[in-house]
């Protein structure tokens, strides 16, 4: 015989506890969501402010209190920023970033293969050395690198900047790629050898496609480092070879008022190529991150 339970009353203590627990969990989840949104807004606000300031006219930029939701928009700040050496700086930035990505990926790929697949004397020491080098502050190496490049007669040239960027990029890229290579079971490569491949063919036909997402993920790191870096670019290049961060910094000149509109427009132009690059490869990036995290 079933027990009679009054309508609207949950007579089962276990269910009642479960419901209370469920409600508590929902409340915690809602609070966490609100906190996450609040933090995201704090981080997104400068981006929002940069974008709307780039489109404001000079009058609206200076109003007090500031206009958070402008009603009038102009492209004049973009036009003046564009004609103020943007294309030249963009070209240098793209050239430097892509070259750094290409060189560091090739070097890191072979180095990661060596440390992941071959056993040799000093292998563990090499891996520790890579980590130690990674911990040295990038800026602390600026003066020694400048001196070395100066001796080599490369200072104030684009190759100098490329070399300077490749060095700090490699430890991280080797470490990351090593994880991707180690995640591919050696048996798969061995299967390719017994299936008629040489070592080189097995690498290109089997291993390379499997670590491609890892290459994409690590190339993003190298690209962002080269794209955003300011200190080395400022010291190692002359005005003609300025990268975008150096070009942007040139808007701040103590002898004249800061052109906020042009500066913000320049910042938007500086950000767009990275965002486009990221959007193009973000699918592969997420696949790469997952593949690296879960060995399977």
């Amino acid at each position: 015989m079933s027990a009679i339970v009054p309508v609207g009353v949950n007579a089962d203590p276990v269910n009642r506890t479960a419901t209370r627990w469920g409600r508590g969990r929902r409340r915690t989840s809602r609070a966490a969501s609100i906190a996450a949104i609040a933090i995201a807004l704090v981080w997104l606000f400068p981006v929002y402010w940069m974008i709307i300031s780039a489109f404001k006219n000079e009058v609206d930029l200076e109003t007090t209190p500031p206009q958070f939701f402008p009603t009038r928009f102009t492209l004049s700040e973009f036009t003046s920023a564009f004609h103020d050496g943007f294309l030249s700086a963009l070209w240098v930035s793209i050239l430097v970033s892509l070259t750094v990505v290409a060189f560091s990926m090739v070097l890191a790929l072979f180095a990661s293969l060596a440390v992941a697949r071959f056993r040799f004397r000093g292998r563990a020491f090499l891996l520790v050395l890579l980590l130690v080098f990674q911990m040295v502050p990038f800026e602390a190496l600026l003066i020694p690198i400048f001196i070395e490049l100066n001796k080599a007669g490369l200072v104030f040239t684009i190759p100098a900047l490329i070399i300077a960027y490749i060095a700090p990029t490699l430890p991280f890229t080797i470490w990351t790629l090593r994880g991707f290579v180690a995640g591919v079971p050696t048996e798969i490569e061995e299967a390719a050898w017994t299936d008629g491949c040489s070592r080189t063919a097995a690498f290109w036909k089997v291993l390379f496609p499997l670590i491609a997402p890892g290459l994409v993920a690590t190339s993003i790191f190298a690209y962002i480092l080269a794209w955003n870096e300011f200190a080395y670019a400022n010291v190692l290049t002359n005005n003609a070879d300025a990268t975008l961060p150096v070009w942007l910094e040139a808007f701040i000149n103590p002898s004249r008022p800061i052109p906020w509109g042009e500066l913000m427009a320049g910042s938007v132009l500086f950000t767009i190529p990275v965002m486009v690059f990221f959007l193009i490869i973000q699918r592969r990036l997420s696949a790469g991150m997952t593949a690296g995290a879960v060995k399977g």
Partner: protein
Amino acid sequence: MATVEYQHATCVYPGMASPAVDDLDLRIEDGELMVLVGPSGSGKSTALRMLAGLEVVHSGEITIGGRVVTSAAPKARDIAMVFQSYALYPHLTVAENMAFPLKQKRVPAPERQQRVLEAARLLELEPYLDRRPRQLSGGQRQRVARGRAIVRQPQAFLMDEPLSNLDAKLRVQTRAEIAGLQQRLGVTTIYVTHDQVEAMTLGHRVAVLKDGRLQQCDTPRNLYEHPRNVFVAGFVGSPAMNLDRLPFDGTAACIGDTPIPLPGAAAAAARQAGLSEVVLGLRPDSLTLAAGAVVPNATSPNGTPSLSCRVHLVEDTGSDAWVHLDAAQGPSTLRLVARADARRLPGVGDQVRVSVAVSDAHVFDPGSGERLGD
């Protein structure tokens, strides 16, 4: 198809004092299914990998079809290997996986497609040809791995524990499939397993390895009936053979007060060697739980020795039942396993009478572990 031969083949891993495979001499006949079996670290997988060209042969030779391949690259050996983890290419479809070795051999596309389809039909993989390995079950992946090996039409198949990742039911089914396929294709096959049941049911001959050394290579029946040494005797057969070191009086070994007369040749060999003790091996099938009243350890009127034992444990597997027994042996007890009629099982703690089929007894030298007699 070809004969495969190891001639004094040795492999030593860097930093290891003893060889992983030590002076292996083994000939696998054309079309034969040879199983390499042994416990972990016995060198069976290393021996297979040496044959595949995945491990360095430090001394000795390996030939396939009369051709010395000791230093040849894996791709030059014309073998196909099925790995324990199947080692399918995750970025390729089933069809592309199977066609991969043919593509490396530059087989024209129409022939490639035809051979893949034939193998897929044989292995019932046709509905899955466009799928990726991650979309397949374990059994299907195993079949793809076999399919990739079959399409090559190699001189020899190499299989490294191909069933160990499957569940028990699928393992039995796949085992039968492999045996059937090998019989049908007639390709020389070298199959590695640690499972002696798999070895006994599949192999035309079975090579038992221990610590990198070949212990015995023979047909499954001969391995079971005439193990060459204590290791093979204990390794082959499930449950394992009862192996006990017993005092020897010149004609019989004694369990408690009961003399177990040894087969004539074995007794003569033990006498000749001047042994006062022997290792007596009795298969569980050689021990029968006798009907009738329990009597002290004695010899029955028909000359069959019988032991009085206490039942320690009963394992009923449905079709078979195994009874673990304690027999008195001086101040201590001797643990024996006997086969019993599953319909009439004794209870734990019961005192039972066990008759010993002495003609099936195996006798070994306790020092060298070698078989005495035949």
